[in-house]
């Protein structure tokens, strides 16, 4: 009794308790003694019942007065200020560490992954390029819709001399070169540039100077700017390197400058920047130059573009003999767009996917918070009884939510740091500018934003629904089961529906990408990739000036490699299937010439040695393969593939047909004759089945860079050391590069789609698991609340299977509603993935069905556990 009284007195404000506590105890002791004498135990019970209620009411009223009194003090801080709210929230968190762990963990994962992906999006897509005045930098290329391709030297010179819209114009092209220094022979990445390249970009030098006008004049000494990495690796970080000579492709170049360690993306990944030769062009082509320009402040991009069109129109008649495509013009493109435009789709897709995961996570946390708010109904009611106003209670609940969010955001930031590091390590091959990605101020602001948004998102629902509870005074004794209010139950169900609506598009997107990946994996590359290894080798002009020297070297090398035990055959090609074909060229069919002004057809021209088809086991369909005789003699012979034949001679025979090569017009142009048709080998990517290939015999021109294709009897990789040894024996100064088995090449072609499909699938499964936990929680609570009803139903003869079915049915109804909304969202969002799909429609019914089936089965499993518990309810126990 005394204990009960003490507990009741504790409900009063401290000041009241101090003043009247003892008096009340004394009063009740005296009164109890009196009533016991008069009415016995029952009377005492009644007395205490009445007094307990009376004391609670008085305590509530005292708190209210106390609060009003404090509010009247003008300078006093409101009770339960933010500090107090925070302390209270921290106490609540410590009381239930498991709950806190789940909530913070879910949020940390969501916020962390979203932050990591956002920092990539920001660093790559949004941030200006690290050049002075990046907005005025542009790229000029040839545009012949739907194709974009580089410029010819004719174009570069015309732009340089005739334009007035740009302060600076430079041009560049890139290729691998061989660097020799005593016993070192390495292949390095070179970007050949014109004299104005570094001044266009505004890139300073760490040592020496950039190029000056005239450095690229015909006959000027060969000079080179080297990267910081190259300078450290190969030149021993020599501070007096300027003036020193380095040998590139057999030619001596004088080093005039060293770039700083951090450069812009146009210089990054290149080792050396030799000055380019600009000989007087004799025809328009070949096309391998890209121009980079710095626009004058008084010119808009549109006006500059217009001037480029005018110059192009002006020079067109001059070069019409070698270039007759009037539809082709020059396109001025923003430099950033040129560098990162292709990755935009991927990054936006990833950001969407990760945001959905975050939303599903937040929804789940909101659900957990609601469930906890129900458990805390008593606590909240007491706080309300003790004078907490609605706004105070809401603020308290929101403070708790924001504290959770802040902790989740903090841990998430740590995860994001790791995630960014992982992304930088993994994705540098596909995503440019990744090394500019960092968790900087902007990203932190974003994280702060999503953290607060998340906190509000899952904090508002419990705060709002808690209001309903305060009205009737919900102070029940601790043993009575507190039930969920109708509003809160509806909210929890709505959250579950929302979770599934958000999860569905992720699953659908993952399904589409996986289906597309499977299609891609199933594409026949057209050659036998087993037991084949490929190696790249380049012959510099300085050591091998003439076509005869080059051909002799390739013949000797093929012979020596062919004599290695275990080698079945050796072939040479400048291209590697399934996606490397450096030489694309236009042509004009003799039978159906392209009308003047229209675009000529274009195909990859793959240069091959006669053994190529046998080595890769490509079948002959018509005519004959190329032979040794085809590389000599006046007549030019080629082999085409079935796709080319189908494209240009539908249903007919291409053997014997003739065409004119690459822009040559007139009767003097040599005719190229098709001598054979072979099976389709993919050279333009596994997903490209548009263009056929022309196979051109090796040895007719100077084929300086070639790939060896070596078919082995056993493991082809085991032969690589011997192949290297044979090549070193022929020329010790030249390096072997790009060693890969044909299977590696196939794997590399599938790597990016696999990467994307895997990441999106991972996000989707995470979201689904979180959603499954959500529906499990709601259904478990449903069963717990209806324990007694279910008991009655079973006691009245209800079959446990039907109880089971009804619980699963209830849960699955929510899942079905969510999924239906999800289907609509999926179809609306599917254009985000459309660009990544191969042979799969963005509204693919199979993927839709698979997503629904997978989601449905996982959700059903999640509903089964509570349903099973419901079906096992013991009616006797439930009705006690």
């Amino acid at each position, binding site marked *: 009794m005394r204990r009960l009284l003490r507990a009741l007195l504790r409900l009063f404000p401290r000041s009241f308790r101090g003043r009247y506590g003892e008096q009340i*105890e004394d*009063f009740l002791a005296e*009164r109890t003694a009196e009533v016991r004498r008069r009415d016995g135990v029952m009377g005492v019970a009644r007395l205490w019942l*009445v*007094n307990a209620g009376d*004391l609670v009411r*008085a305590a509530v009223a005292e708190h209210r007065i106390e609060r009003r009194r404090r509010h009247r003090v003008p300078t006093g801080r409101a009770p339960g200020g933010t500090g107090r709210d925070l302390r209270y929230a921290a106490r609540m968190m410590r009381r239930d560490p498991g709950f806190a762990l789940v909530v913070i963990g879910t949020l940390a994962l969501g916020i962390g992954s979203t932050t990591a992906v956002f920092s990539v999006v920001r660093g790559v897509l949004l941030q200006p390029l690290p050049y002075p005045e990046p907005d005025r930098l542009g790229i000029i290329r040839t545009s012949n819709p739907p194709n974009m391709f580089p410029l010819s030297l004719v174009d570069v010179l015309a732009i340089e001399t005739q334009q007035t819209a740009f302060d600076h114009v430079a041009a560049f092209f890139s290729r691998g070169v061989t660097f020799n220094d005593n016993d070192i022979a390495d292949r390095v990445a070179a970007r050949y540039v014109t004299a104005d390249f570094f001044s266009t970009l505004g890139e300073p030098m760490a040592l020496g100077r950039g190029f000056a006008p005239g450095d690229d004049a015909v006959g000027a000494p060969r000079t080179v700017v080297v990267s910081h990495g190259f300078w450290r690796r190969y030149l021993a970080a020599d501070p007096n390197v300027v003036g020193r000579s380095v040998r590139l492709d057999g030619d001596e170049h004088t080093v005039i400058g060293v770039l700083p360690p951090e450069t812009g993306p146009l210089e990054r990944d290149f080792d050396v920047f030799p000055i380019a030769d600009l000989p007087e062009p004799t025809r328009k082509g070949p096309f391998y130059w890209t121009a980079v320009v710095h626009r004058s402040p008084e010119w808009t991009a549109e006006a500059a573009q217009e001037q480029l069109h005018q110059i192009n129109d002006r020079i067109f008649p001059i070069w019409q003999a070698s270039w007759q495509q009037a539809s082709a013009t020059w396109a001025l493109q923003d430099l950033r767009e040129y560098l990162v435009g292709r990755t935009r789709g991927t990054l936006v897709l990833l950001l969407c996917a990760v945001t959905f995961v975050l939303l599903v996570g937040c929804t789940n946390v909101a659900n957990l918070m609601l469930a906890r708010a129900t458990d805390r109904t008593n606590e909240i009611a007491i706080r309300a009884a003790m004078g907490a106003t609605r706004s105070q209670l809401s603020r308290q609940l929101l403070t708790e939510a924001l504290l959770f969010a802040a902790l989740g955001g903090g841990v998430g930031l740590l995860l994001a740091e790791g995630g960014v590091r992982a992304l930088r390590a993994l994705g540098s091959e596909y995503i440019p500018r990744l090394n500019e990605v960092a968790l900087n101020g902007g990203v932190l602001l974003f994280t702060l934003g999503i953290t607060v948004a998340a906190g509000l998102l899952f904090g508002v629902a419990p705060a709002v629904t808690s209001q309903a509870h305060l009205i009737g005074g919900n102070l029940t004794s601790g043993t009575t089961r507190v039930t969920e209010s109708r509003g809160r139950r509806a909210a929890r169900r709505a959250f579950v529906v929302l979770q599934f609506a958000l999860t569905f598009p992720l699953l659908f997107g993952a399904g589409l990408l996986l289906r597309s990946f499977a299609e891609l994996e199933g594409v026949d590359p057209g050659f036998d990739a087993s037991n084949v290894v490929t190696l790249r080798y380049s012959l510099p002009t300085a050591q091998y000036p003439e076509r005869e020297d080059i051909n002799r070297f390739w013949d000797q090398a093929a012979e020596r490699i062919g004599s290695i035990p275990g080698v079945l055959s050796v072939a040479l090609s400048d291209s590697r299937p399934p996606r490397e074909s450096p030489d694309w060229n236009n042509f004009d069919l003799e039978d159906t010439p392209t009308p003047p002004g229209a675009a000529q057809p274009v195909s990859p021209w793959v240069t091959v040695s006669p053994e190529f088809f046998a080595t890769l086991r490509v079948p002959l369909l018509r005519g004959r393969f190329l032979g040794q005789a085809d590389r000599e003699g006046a007549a030019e012979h080629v082999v085409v593939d079935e796709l080319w034949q189908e494209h240009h001679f539908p249903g007919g025979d291409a053997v014997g047909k003739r065409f004119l090569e690459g822009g040559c017009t007139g009767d003097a142009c040599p005719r190229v004759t098709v001598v054979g048709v072979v099976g389709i080998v993919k050279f333009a990517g596994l997903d490209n089945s548009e263009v056929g290939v022309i196979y051109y015999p090796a040895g007719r021109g100077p084929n300086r860079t070639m790939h060896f294709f070596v078919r082995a009897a056993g493991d082809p990789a085991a032969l690589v050391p011997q192949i290297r040894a044979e090549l070193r024996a022929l020329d010790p100064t030249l390096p072997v590069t790009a060693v890969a088995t044909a299977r590696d090449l196939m794997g590399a072609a599938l790597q990016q789609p696999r990467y994307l499909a895997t990441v999106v699938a991972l996000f989707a499964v995470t979201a689904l698991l979180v959603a499954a936990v959500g529906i499990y929680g709601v259904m478990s609570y449903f069963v717990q609340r209806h324990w007694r009803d279910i008991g009655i139903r079973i006691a009245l003869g209800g079959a446990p299977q039907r109880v089971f079915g009804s619980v699963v049915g209830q849960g699955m109804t929510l899942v079905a509603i969510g999924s239906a909304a999800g289907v609509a969202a999926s179809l609306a969002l599917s254009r985000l993935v459309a660009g990544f799909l191969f042979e799969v429609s963005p509204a693919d019914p199979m993927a839709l069905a698979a997503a629904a089936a997978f989601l449905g089965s996982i959700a059903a499993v999640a509903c089964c556990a509570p349903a099973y518990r419901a079906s096992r309810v013991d009616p006797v126990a439930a009705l006690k």
Partner: protein
Amino acid sequence: MVRVRRSQAREGLTPVMFQILLALTDGDSHGYAIMKSIEERTGGDMELGAGTLYRSLKQLMDQDFIAEVKPRTVVHRQRRSYRLTPAGRKLARREAEKLAGLVEWARSADLLDPHGA
């Protein structure tokens, strides 16, 4: 401008407070005795809980209608007596007059037996 009188303070004078004031007109008294006195006076109709009683005492004290008296004995150290202040007495009188007026009005409306109450 209307001056708010003490008697019309926000809490107002509740029936319990009026009873307490009446109980104290007989002289100083402590909580339990006040309760007993009210119980007797109302014939057991008004049975005061401890919470209501002490809350009312506090409110009357806060508005200076009653005052605490130093305990005379050491037997019940916690037992404190209360005494009516002049303001309290005035308030009780005014309240009684108000009630008497009401009773008169009820009687003139034939709501009451002329000899009763």
